[in-house]
């Protein structure tokens, strides 16, 4: 499972609003599709995603089958201090995944 993370701008000033973009490879199975022999393919979506910035949660999303496969999430936060962004998510099968990214804030 691949994931891509981008912080725009990459080196923000303190107090600047940054955009965080996360692209997660996941097939977001809707639960409405059937396989070749007519059986229902069970739903398997990422159902929760959260982003913590130096330990404090700054963004959380509940995802559902209306969201495309390989979802792209974009949100904003204020660059307060250099540190770490931690992204974590879980799908319907209970598979958890996480990824970290550094954020470097200039004065």
């Amino acid at each position, binding site marked *: 499972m*691949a*994931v*891509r993370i*981008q912080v725009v701008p990459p080196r923000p000033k303190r107090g600047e609003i940054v955009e965080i*973009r996360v*692209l997660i*490879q996941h*097939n*977001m199975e809707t639960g409405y599709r059937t396989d070749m022999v007519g059986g229902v393919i069970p739903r398997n979506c990422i159902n929760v995603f959260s982003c913590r910035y130096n330990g404090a949660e700054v963004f959380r999303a509940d995802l559902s089958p209306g969201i*495309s*496969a*390989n979802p*792209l999430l974009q949100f904003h936060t204020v660059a307060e201090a250099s540190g770490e962004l931690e992204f974590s998510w879980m799908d319907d099968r209970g598979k958890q995944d996480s990824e970290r990214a550094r954020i470097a804030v200039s004065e």
Partner: protein
Amino acid sequence: MIRPAAVWFVAAALAGPGIAAGGQERHIALGDLKSGIAFSSRDIRAMQEDDFSNPAMLWVEKGAKLWAAGARSCASCHGEAEKSMRGVATRYPAIDRGSGRLLSLGDRIMQCRSERQGAPALRHESDELLSLTALVAHQSRGMPIGVSIEGPARPHFEAGREFFFRRIGQVDIACTHCHDANWGKTLFAETISQGHPNAFPIYRTEWQTAGSIERRLRACLSGIRAEMLPYGAPEYRDLELYLAWRAQGLPIETPGVRR
């Protein structure tokens, strides 16, 4: 619509072999070649242009991991893909000197795995194969397609061309009727493209995943209610070679996004 185009096509096809010595009849002049992205909506174009939001880059990224994985990794022979694989995809499909077979880029990767790496075979359309193919083809982004149709490739090229012009399926049309005679016009809600293979593997929003040119060709066959040949069928390779020749000079876009 189809009939006058068909008459025109028969005339053109008859004229074709006459000038085979110096080159082939081109139904779309080299100057009029347009990548499929030119027929896509603004949203799709924006998705492909932004390397971050282009979901197909997930496969390229995964390909880079696979490239370096294992004891006899791709990297252990070929080094950095960025250098060693530059321009490689522009030459495929190509004849394999050893076996004399026409191989697509995916076939070559599979062959390398089985003969040199001793790695387990990959399924057609598996994430691993698509990822490696995307990684290799991505290194040729911006470079023009330039396949060879001479020597042992010639019969494959002829077979591919024959396929392109043969009426098939319940709808009883050939590739040429859409992609030579009617490109730029609409088919229901779609704009018909020229059918160039310059962005594969592509991420198709309809598929919600990445796919190979074979999968795309199967979609075309299904659309005209023709028999879908199995993955790996030599007919696809021949057709790919004809398509690549037909798109000669178009820059590779891999990984592309299409609707």
